[in-house]
């Protein structure tokens, strides 16, 4: 009854190369592939999440190209996502990769304390453009995904993954972390970016506090009371990398983080990423992206209000500060200083636009 070897995060450095995989994991991969009926001719590491113990290979088989993936999350959590992928593909015919069954008819293999699975490799995929047209295509595709995911039920034996009720907690955490950033910038106040961060962080923390108050006074709790199944899933990591054009239209990939949620959060992230690329907040740009989403998954008024509140959080600032906690002596450098300058400028353009959106969004009737 010896204990099995567990997959633990590994480190890579320049001598090992970016796609290094520890030999024991390669051995496990061969063992996992024994559970499948196809014959593997070649396998190639496509990406690693070595800090968490995750990995994806492209495998060439006698039955066509496929992906073999190790999901880094807890097995019962991963089973939730696998269940979702199967539901979306089989029941809702969504454009997500089909899961290939093992020779005993299972969706997954558990080894090394992780869930492994094989899916069809969609060969034709390419990234859409980062311009407005490309963003609209992405927006429409995630709307469709949200719509189709409604009705999914957590499979027996899987962890119930929901962020639906966690928004206030997440907002509070943002507020708390602003304090962490401040403490770290203070203790490292000799670094180039520290002074600028310290002079501006109170403003961003105040924005987060106001967003929390707005959330608490919003229809959020009425909305969440509808329950997880009603709302369906948010992808939680959506953007140009995980929504790609291919045969039949847009495909959504890398579903391992999906969780029940008010899915508009995915759209908020997409909009903000596109605005960062654009270099400013722009009303008509955002309205067009909203329209594209609305066609696939109508945005009701209460959800629109939640979207505006979520936009009021200092998301971009927060996202850019996080790394500072890990390597303050490297990260609080001139580059971060100029990034923060850019973020402050972008932030100035944000508030009038949020007000305009409130006035100009007519629930999909702008056209």
């Amino acid at each position, binding site marked *: *009854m010896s*204990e099995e070897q567990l997959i633990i995060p590994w*480190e890579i450095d320049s001598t090992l190369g970016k796609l290094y995989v520890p030999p024991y994991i390669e051995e496990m991969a061969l063992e996992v592939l024994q559970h499948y009926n196809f014959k593997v001719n070649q396998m190639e590491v496509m990406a690693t999440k070595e800090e968490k113990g995750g990995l994806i290979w492209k495998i060439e088989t006698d039955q066509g190209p496929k992906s073999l993936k190790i999901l880094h999350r807890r097995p*019962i959590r991963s089973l939730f996502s696998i269940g979702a992928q199967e539901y979306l593909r089989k029941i809702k015919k969504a454009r997500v990769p089909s899961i290939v069954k093992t020779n005993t008819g299972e969706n997954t293999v558990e080894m090394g304390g992780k869930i492994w699975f094989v899916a069809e490799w969609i060969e034709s995929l390419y990234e859409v453009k980062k311009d407005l047209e490309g963003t609209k295509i992405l927006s429409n595709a995630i709307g469709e995904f949200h719509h189709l995911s409604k009705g999914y039920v957590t499979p027996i034996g899987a962890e119930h993954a929901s962020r639906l009720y966690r928004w206030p907690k997440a907002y509070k955490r943002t507020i708390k*972390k602003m304090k*962490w950033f401040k403490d*770290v910038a203070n*203790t*490292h106040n000799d670094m180039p970016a520290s002074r600028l961060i310290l002079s501006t962080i109170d403003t961003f923390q105040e924005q987060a506090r106001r967003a929390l108050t707005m959330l608490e006074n919003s229809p959020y709790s009425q909305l969440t009371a509808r329950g997880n199944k009603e709302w369906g899933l948010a992808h939680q990591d959506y953007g140009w990398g995980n929504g790609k054009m291919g045969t039949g239209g847009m495909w959504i990939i890398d579903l391992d983080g999906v969780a029940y949620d008010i899915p508009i959060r995915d759209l908020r992230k997409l909009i903000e990423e596109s605005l960062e690329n654009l270099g400013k907040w722009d009303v008509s740009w955002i309205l067009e992206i909203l329209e594209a989403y609305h066609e696939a998954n109508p945005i009701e008024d209460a959800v629109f209000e939640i979207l505006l509140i979520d936009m009021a959080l200092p998301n971009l600032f927060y996202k850019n500060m996080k790394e500072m*906690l890990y390597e303050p002596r490297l990260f609080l450098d001139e580059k971060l200083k100029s990034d923060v300058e850019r973020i402050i400028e972008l932030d100035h353009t944000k508030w009038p636009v949020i007000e305009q959106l409130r006035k100009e969004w007519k629930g999909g009737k702008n056209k």
Partner: protein
Amino acid sequence: MRVLIICTEKLPVPPVKGGAIQTYIAGAVPYLNENHAITILGRDDPSLPDEEIIDDVQYVRVPGKLLETYREGIVNFVKDNTFDLIHIFNRPRLVCPVRDVAPNSRIILSMHNDMFKIEKIDPAEATKAISQLDKIITISNYIGEAIVKLFPEAKPKLQTIYSGVDLDRFVPIYSDKGRKLGDWIRKEYELESKKIILFAGRLSANKGADVLIRAVHKLTKKHSNVALVLMGSKGYSDNRMTDYIAYINAMANRFSIPVITTGFVQPDQIQNWFAAADIFVCPSQWEEPLARVHYEAMAAGLPIVTTARGGNTEVIEGNKNGLIVENPDNPEEFVTHLSTLLTNPKLCKQMGQHGRNFVERNHSWDRVVSDIANVWKEIDYNIQNNTTIGSVTLQGKKQLMENIQDTEQKEANADQEIQGEKRDKNINTRLSVIEEQQSPITQKTQLRKKKKLPYSPFNRSRSKNLGLVSILF
């Protein structure tokens, strides 16, 4: 009686993967087993068989991890077996399903965390569960009060049984054994001349290590001779980096005083750092049930600084064994209390000795076991007298009062025996006796399998990784 103990779905018993509840059960069962036929129902583990009998205790293990999966295994087992008493640990959500398949058993529940709150259990189910219980044991008054706030009808069923500490393993810093252990660690870390302030627990914002770091930083303006030891990690046997740990490292690495982050320390090794410390601080920010570390610090003869949160202050006798911080998010209050202690070694020693006496009197495992045994006796009484299931009877209460008086009398006798002897000598003598005849609890602990340590995030910082600690439910 035929007794079934139902553990949680998280970790197996014996505690091969640690866990406070699992350690608690493993510690108490060898004694309780003398008068009862015990079955322990818990979750499975690759290193343990699904069924076995050790020292007349039957172990049955069913798939765990998820409560839903676990519940199914529990129900199936209880359906096919009959017990007089079913003692469930920390899972109110198991009460009703167990009742459905065991209509005639007495059920009691031990609560180690606030699992009756609304996000943990549906209030309607909680009300029903409470009605089915003969008794609810809590590990602090705070946990009992939290239940009563939501479900007032639970009040007559509540009884606090505080947890215990292994008094042989956690030795006072002023005993010979304590000095020896402490000196070894101090030498290893080049802290021989330092005043060591110790934190022990998970490294998460709830536990407040960041506030302590800032307090100690301020403290060094007056007291340059201190070192701060943060003993703990993200979770049990989990040395992964988190934003929070990165945050406290980013601060600690800039301070001129030594901050030692140990990473995960195996439960059977944590006494070493307690023996090396001068002051113990529990900077908890959240309303916690009552952290075990307080007992461990007192057993080690350390003065304590703790926060007025949850059940923590229930074991602090005002200014005798520790000082209380009223506003835990304010580093200044910690600075004040720590200054008081650092400038007054005599007070530290008095507090430490008082703390040691306090846990010897109130928190030995013998006392815990006898309290549980008394509750079981009370249930036996209920069964013999055929009282209604889930009702609180006058007879039951009377029996309980007698039990308590009996225990108090025994404690008073024991106290008298101790009086007249010098405490230090007394403790040292008792320790040497104990070393020869180790208690079953200690033996169990030593039998625990040592696990290989995973990659430590602390290797990134300049701190050393000792390899071990954590006290988790």
